[in-house]
């Protein structure tokens, strides 16, 4: 018995999922060109092929949910609602960038959408996500923290420590493990004695499922199930999202460690192609609708690039600003007023 992929998804949402994936795809494709043109520098890790993961998860996220991602973070930022202009300007190292040009591609941040980076230390974002979840639990909200990371991170001590802590304290963290089979050039089986990631998560007493990460409906459904449980106090959930990156690890990677045929076979499962075909088959997407969507998306990316081009660089006089707080940063706090006025 197969479940209808459109179950629970109305036509506007089905189209929105396609549009989100396409926005990420086109954004990334332009990044390649801009990198070759030396407009974008530093490390650049692309999300092409993995779009269904960010789009499917984001479908269930609310503005008050927090997201922590890795250096491969453009897709997550865009899906969480960070504006394309601010993301592109960040890569152009401009002051209008979402981190004012201090972070670049790997370190996108946005307080307004609760996007907590862009962490370039493998595993480094995991404990932070647990802490964000702890704050929500403490405050008695039903908001959650989502941590997206690659399967390479499960070898890090920080993953094991955080899985244990989150499970022990029943923290509302969604561990979204994007298993794209390779950590740089190292296939999972060449680095892990036990490659069953769900079993690993289960060993921490955590609910875990494996999901087809090339299928946006499957990611959306699994996330929905996880978040419903988490928002009701059910504790953390681990999702293994089986996906694939169509491009090399980063722009520096000559991609010597996998067969071209393997890449081609995964491209046959392109999440955008498949979702588009389904929506056309069901009549949700009419004749020419995709091309129209694509033109609008291209226009959005072009606008972001133009914005980034025109933006200013941060004045060097601001170099040391925000090493320490200068009063301009809203320090997160709901009711921090000391009870008794702070007398010692």
């Amino acid at each position, binding site marked *: 018995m197969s479940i209808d992929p459109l179950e629970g998804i109305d036509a506007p949402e089905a189209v929105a999922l396609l549009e989100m994936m396409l926005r990420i795809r086109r954004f990334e494709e332009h990044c390649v060109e801009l990198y070759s043109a030396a407009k974008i520098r530093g490390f650049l890790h692309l999300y092409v092929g993995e779009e269904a993961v960010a789009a499917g998860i984001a479908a269930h996220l609310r503005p008050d949910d927090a997201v922590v991602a890795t250096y491969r973070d453009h897709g997550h930022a865009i899906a969480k609602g960070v504006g394309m202009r601010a993301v592109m300007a960040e890569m152009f190292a401009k002051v209008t960038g979402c981190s004012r040009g201090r*972070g670049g591609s790997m370190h996108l941040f946005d307080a307004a959408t609760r996007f907590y980076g862009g962490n370039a230390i493998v595993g*480094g974002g*995991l404990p*932070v996500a647990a*802490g964000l979840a702890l704050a929500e639990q*403490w405050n008695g909200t039903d908001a959650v923290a989502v941590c997206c990371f690659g399967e390479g991170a499960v070898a890090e001590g*920080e993953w094991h420590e955080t899985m244990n802590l989150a499970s022990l304290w029943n923290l509302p963290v969604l561990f979204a493990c994007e298993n794209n089979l390779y950590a740089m050039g190292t296939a999972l089986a060449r680095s892990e004695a036990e490659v069953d990631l769900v079993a690993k998560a289960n060993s921490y007493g955590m609910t875990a499922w494996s999901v087809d990460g090339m299928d946006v409906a499957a990611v959306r459904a699994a996330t929905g199930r996880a978040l419903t449980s988490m928002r009701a106090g059910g504790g953390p959930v681990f999702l293994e999202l089986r996906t694939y990156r169509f491009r090399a690890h980063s722009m520096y990677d000559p991609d010597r460690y996998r067969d071209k045929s393997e890449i081609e076979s995964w491209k046959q499962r392109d999440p955008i192609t498949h979702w588009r075909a389904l929506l056309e088959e069901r009549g949700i997407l009419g004749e020419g609708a995709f091309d129209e969507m694509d033109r609008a998306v291209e226009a959005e990316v072009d606008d972001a690039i133009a914005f980034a081009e025109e933006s200013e660089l941060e004045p060097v006089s601001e170099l040391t600003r925000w090493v*320490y707080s200068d009063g301009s940063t809203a320090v997160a706090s709901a009711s921090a007023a*000391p009870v008794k006025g702070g007398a010692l």
Partner: protein
Amino acid sequence: MKLDYRAALRDGLRHALINEPRAFLMGEDVGAYGGCFAVSLGLLEELGENKVRDTPLSESAFVGAGIGAAMGGLRPIVEIMTVNFSLLALDQIMNNAATLLHMSGGQFAVPLVIRMTTGAGRQLAAQHSHSLEGWYAHIPGLRIVAPATVADARGMLWTALADPDPVLIFEHAALFGITDDLPEELEPVDLDRAAVRRPGTDITIVTYGSGLHRSLEAAEVLPGEGISAEVIDLRTLRPLDSDTYLESVARTHRALVVEEGWRTGGIGAEVAAQIGEEAFWDLDAPVGRLATAEVPIPYAQHLEAAALVQADDVVAAVRAVVG
């Protein structure tokens, strides 16, 4: 009220947890055990599991969770048993706590306090005795403080908790027994200012933590040789309050730096370099430096004592500088 250093730390911690509704303590054995130095003894029973949280042996996870919780609106006080174990959380401290505000373009402050013990003197050998606060003071984005007195042990936490940025408090393991009589009405501790602990006219001794006590002992006997030493307690190793010691050196024309960290690249090197850069023409003699011998701290009592700066060493170094 008469308190020892440990009781002062406990009182300060209890006060902070009660008066700051967003504050909580987490760390290894802070609850049921009462803290590995008994600083939090009784607080779990009094304040409950939400305010006093025992964590697994996962320094990286609970320090990182402190960072996330701080960004999420809480005021975590994280206890790491000793600085030696903080190395397992170095990624979180360095790559996240110290970095996020700047790297996010000023969007995410991390109002986190991390307390840990530091220092040697109890024959615990090389994996329990190091003084790495000077090393942490190398990192922009952190505030590094070291209470050397009972009053600072009582008051530093409250000031640290109000700081919007990460503060690391280094409590010296060999000072838990020192006592003092504190007034009922306490003044807030100013973490921006070093403190002149003993005024003097012939030489400025710049120190902190355990070094303060060795320096004060030396300053007691030096008048017998006709030398009046001014002793300055840095209190905050980052950012350094250089005004206080430069002003002092301008009066005394001589300086000695005393620390428990290693000499090479230590905080004393930084202070001495600053005096060289900014007070060179005030100096009548080269700046003296005393630090721990460049060895992993050994177990044997005589070797450990030989590795550490003793009051006699301070006296000898002062003589050498004063000439």
